[in-house]
């Protein structure tokens, strides 16, 4: 085997496994070719894969349907295909997406999202058709359905195969992809519509298969409401041709337009003109991207006619008594006939960037819970969820480069502009907070006494107990304010003070800084688990002081050199810290050199990210291995006559073994999700860090 093929990078392996799990083996074969060779044409794939042209077309169409590959722009003489690494990796998150949507909205919404995830971009009309078919789906699809429902274990696989077999019409040629996928999706819908959240993680991570009876969407109108709500919140977005362009193609396309329109077709040469061009390219890219997220006019105008305002984002209320409102809806619009409405032609898809925002919130809340307690964490969650609506993504991928400084000019240090909408006051939070929360817990009793003005504190016990549920809004606001102060004083600075309006403090969340701190925190966590306290101490010392020689490190850590040498060695081997040798004299003798150690957050971050990918791949491989061991049993349990009558047809030892396998699988999937959380922290919350 040639040198370049000796070992494929870990991420490629990982994504190939994910693709195989989610959309089937054929697609995975083609995916792995693309992963190995990079951007390829159809003919080149055929040469490299030993597959027939027809198979390749089928496989590619599946990949395209799931947004796993990019293709070059419509009308190009030769169509190139390229992997969308980000979205391919995001396959592992599908379960999380559905879960986050369910937490924030309800089961119905998560059902819609899960279906959209398994279908890829879909026209709203087709989605309607899928939920409320005009005629019954063909019978063979139904039977297929039955087996798949009964045996959740292999569901993803069956679906993948299913997807390929139904796609006989998938003759893919470079110029009509989007349409094709929409229609392809539609043919497949019949087979799939009955399993909400039908990817494996969703079911096994939550530990409970999603019940089908709950969260049934009763009418088309309700479906539209959900779609519209999710679009407004940024969970869904309009699917567009440009989304199928690889970053390189998109850049080329935008650059071409910019040159055409702003520079009269001549590529600029001067430094300033070039800089201008870079800026307008970035501006245009942002505009294109933000365009996807705007709710189409046909959908938003519909909203104004809608009589109820039940879908406002007050998540808690929606969750607790959402049922009523939905049913109220149903009565309004259930009788509407199937008619073609203007929004039917809008293709929609899940916004892949939004889930990172939700993951960030979840992790921050978890961290606050660990550091400051449950109640403060709940307060923080309310804050974050309130902010989330306006955050389509975690960080700006295409920020404007800093303006070039004129000589002698000071760098511009004025604080960045903050959208006043994104400021938080204690009162808003107090209003939106879960009413069943004991807001007083986790605070100094003296604070409570000061707020209520009743009784006093004796031996740290209130002499006059306070019922946290009986507080007036004003008192509650001040209690919440105390929690916010706790959040802001923490070294993570979960919130920071922004300004004062009247007597009310307004707060904001500086996500960028927190994200950096989170990365550091995870690196420290990793080191802590491997090295115990000493390694973390060393890393923190190096982070604070920069490059140190041995003596400097000893002084900072107040330990003798012998005690820390071993740790330095271990961390260097793991790639967490770097060493450097600076010769003092011409001869490079060890004795006459300075030996420095240093720590670079970005390097450690990349190293840990890479290791985590590898860890995830191992887990997936282990799952496959564990499944292989009980494969015979699984296929037995999946037989249509056995399903539902397991007790009757399987022996006790078989049942035990099946149970054991499910536990093992669950444990592994859970761990996979947790590693994915780490990946999100390390990769998705903030762009590359230039220096520590």
């Amino acid at each position: 085997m040639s040198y370049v093929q000796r070992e494929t990078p870990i991420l490629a392996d990982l994504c190939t496994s994910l693709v195989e799990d989610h959309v089937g083996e054929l697609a995975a074969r083609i995916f792995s070719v693309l992963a190995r060779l990079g951007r390829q044409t159809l003919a080149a794939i055929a040469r490299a894969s030993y597959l027939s042209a027809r198979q390749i077309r089928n496989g590619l169409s599946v990949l395209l349907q799931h947004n796993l590959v990019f293709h070059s722009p419509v009308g190009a003489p030769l169509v190139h295909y390229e992997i969308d690494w980000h979205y391919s990796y995001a396959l592992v998150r599908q379960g999380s997406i559905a879960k986050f949507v369910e937490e924030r909205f309800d089961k119905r919404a998560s059902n819609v999202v899960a279906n959209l995830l398994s279908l890829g971009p879909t026209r709203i009309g087709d989605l309607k058709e899928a939920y409320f078919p005009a005629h019954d789906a063909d019978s063979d699809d139904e039977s297929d359905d039955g087996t798949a429902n009964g045996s959740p274990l292999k569901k993803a696989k069956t679906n993948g195969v299913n997807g390929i077999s139904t796609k006989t019409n998938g003759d893919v040629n470079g110029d009509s992809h989007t349409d094709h996928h929409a229609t392809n999706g539609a043919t497949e819908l019949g087979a799939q519509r009955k399993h909400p959240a039908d990817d494996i993680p969703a079911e096994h991570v939550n530990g409970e298969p999603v019940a089908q009876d709950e969260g049934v969407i009763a009418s088309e109108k309700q479906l539209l409401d959900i779609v519209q709500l999710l679009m407004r919140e940024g969970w869904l977005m309009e699917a567009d041709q440009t989304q199928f362009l690889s970053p390189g193609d998109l850049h080329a396309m935008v650059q071409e337009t910019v040159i055409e329109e702003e520079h009269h077709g001549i590529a600029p040469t001067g430094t300033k003109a070039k800089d201008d061009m870079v800026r307008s390219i970035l501006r245009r890219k942002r505009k294109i991207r933000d365009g996807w997220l705007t709710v189409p006019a046909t959908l938003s105008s519909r909203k104004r006619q809608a009589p109820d305002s039940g879908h406002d984002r007050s998540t808690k209320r929606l969750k607790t008594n959402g049922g009523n409102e939905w049913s109220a809806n149903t009565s309004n619009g259930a009788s509407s006939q199937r008619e073609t409405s203007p929004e039917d032609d809008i293709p929609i898809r899940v916004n892949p960037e939004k889930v990172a925002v939700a993951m960030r919130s979840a992790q921050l809340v978890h961290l606050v819970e660990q550091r400051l307690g449950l109640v403060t964490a709940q307060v923080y969650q309310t804050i974050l969820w309130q902010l989330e609506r306006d955050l389509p993504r975690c960080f700006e991928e295409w920020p404007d480069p800093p303006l070039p400084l004129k000589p002698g000019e000071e760098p511009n240090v004025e604080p960045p502009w903050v959208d006043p909408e994104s400021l938080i006051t204690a009162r808003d939070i107090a209003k939106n907070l879960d009413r069943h929360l004991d807001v007083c817990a986790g605070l100094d009793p003296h604070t409570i006494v000061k707020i209520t003005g009743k009784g006093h504190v004796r031996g740290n016990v209130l002499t006059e107990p306070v019922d946290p549920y009986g507080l007036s809004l004003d008192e509650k606001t001040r209690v919440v304010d105390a929690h916010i102060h706790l959040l802001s004083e923490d070294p993570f600075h979960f919130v920071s003070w922004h300004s004062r309006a009247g007597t009310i403090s307004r707060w904001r969340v500086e996500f960028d800084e927190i994200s950096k701190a989170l990365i550091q925190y995870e690196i420290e966590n990793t080191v802590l688990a491997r090295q115990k306290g000493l390694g973390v101490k060393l890393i923190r010392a190096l982070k604070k002081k920069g490059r140190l020689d041995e003596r400097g490190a000893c002084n900072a850590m107040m330990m003798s050199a012998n005690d820390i040498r071993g740790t330095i060695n271990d961390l260097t081997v793991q790639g967490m810290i770097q060493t450097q040798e600076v010769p003092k004299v011409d001869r490079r003798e060890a004795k006459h050199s300075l030996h420095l150690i240093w720590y670079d957050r970005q390097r450690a971050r990349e190293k840990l990210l890479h290791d985590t990918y590898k860890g995830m791949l191992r887990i997936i491989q282990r799952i496959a291995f564990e499944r292989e061991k009980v494969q015979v049993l699984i296929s037995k349990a999946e037989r249509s006559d056995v399903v539902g009558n397991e007790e009757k047809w399987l022996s006790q030892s078989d049942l035990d073994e099946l149970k054991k396998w499910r536990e093992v699988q669950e444990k592994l999937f859970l761990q996979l999700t947790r590693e994915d959380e780490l990946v999100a922290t390390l990769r998705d919350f903030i762009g590359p860090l230039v220096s520590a």
Partner: protein
Amino acid sequence: MDLLYEKCAQRAAGTIFFQRDLQNMQVAETLGELTMLVGQLCAQHLLKLMTFDSEMCWKLRTRSEADKLRRLNPDERLLYHHIDQAQNEGIWSKALRARTNVTQQLLTKCLKSLESKDLVQSVMSVKFPNRKMYLLKDLRPSEDIAGGPWQSEGDFDAALIDTISGVVARYIESETCIKVPGNWNDYTPMDRAQAIAQKKAQVQGVRDIEDSLAVQPYKPPVDPTAVRVVHRNNPQYPTAGTVASWLNAKEILKDKHVRDDDMEQLLEMMVLDGRLEKISGATYRTVLMASDTKTFNGFVDAPCGNCPVFDLCGEGAISARTCVYFGEWLATESEVI
């Protein structure tokens, strides 16, 4: 002569005598006699000649010390003289050699004999760990060469640091945190909605179905002895200065004075250790963890995160299929090769 010595010895040890002091003792009758007496005492090393502001002055040595000095050979005496001059800053052996121009062998020999006679001591310098500094036996090495209160014999005193940081941590915790017993807010949940509903039911005679949804919020049972530590409201966050003066007042460290700088070093180290956290520029508080169970992250909690052969893992003998750690973790069998 002895008389003069005795008279001088009556003064507090370490007193420095100027000529007028000696004259005032009225031992000698003339200045000449006094000069002679002092000269004799100096020759016997009972007095040490020094200068202060270009004025001659003397200091008394004990008889035993003088005795030892008298037995030195000239080389040793020369070295002793130079070491003496360096006082508690100490002098590096190489510098000593440069100043005295003796050979290395002689230097080593003399220093050894001086040390064996308990006249000088050698100390490892903290600033230059490979330099041996010499100073007189009865002097305490200055902080420049011996380091601050946290160091002994040129190295950090781990046991001392451990103890003191424990004490300091407790002090800071008591300053910035407060222990709240489980029953601190022993309220009886009073539910207005419930009360209203009951009243309504009484008046109307029929219960309104909407009123009955007032479910009592779940109040977890509290254990009065379960103490939770929370951050104090409006605390006075300690700084290095306040902690240092507190520690000095407590006199935990025997005859050592902790300066603010030393304390800052200790506190910063404790921040690195994760025991304290810095609030603003120079104030500290205790790190609290609300939950006792420490989880790391998804990666290191799985076997791969701590795997000793992680880098070797892949296709082949070491792989996910054959992994013993996975087998242990999942309690399943791995493939045997």
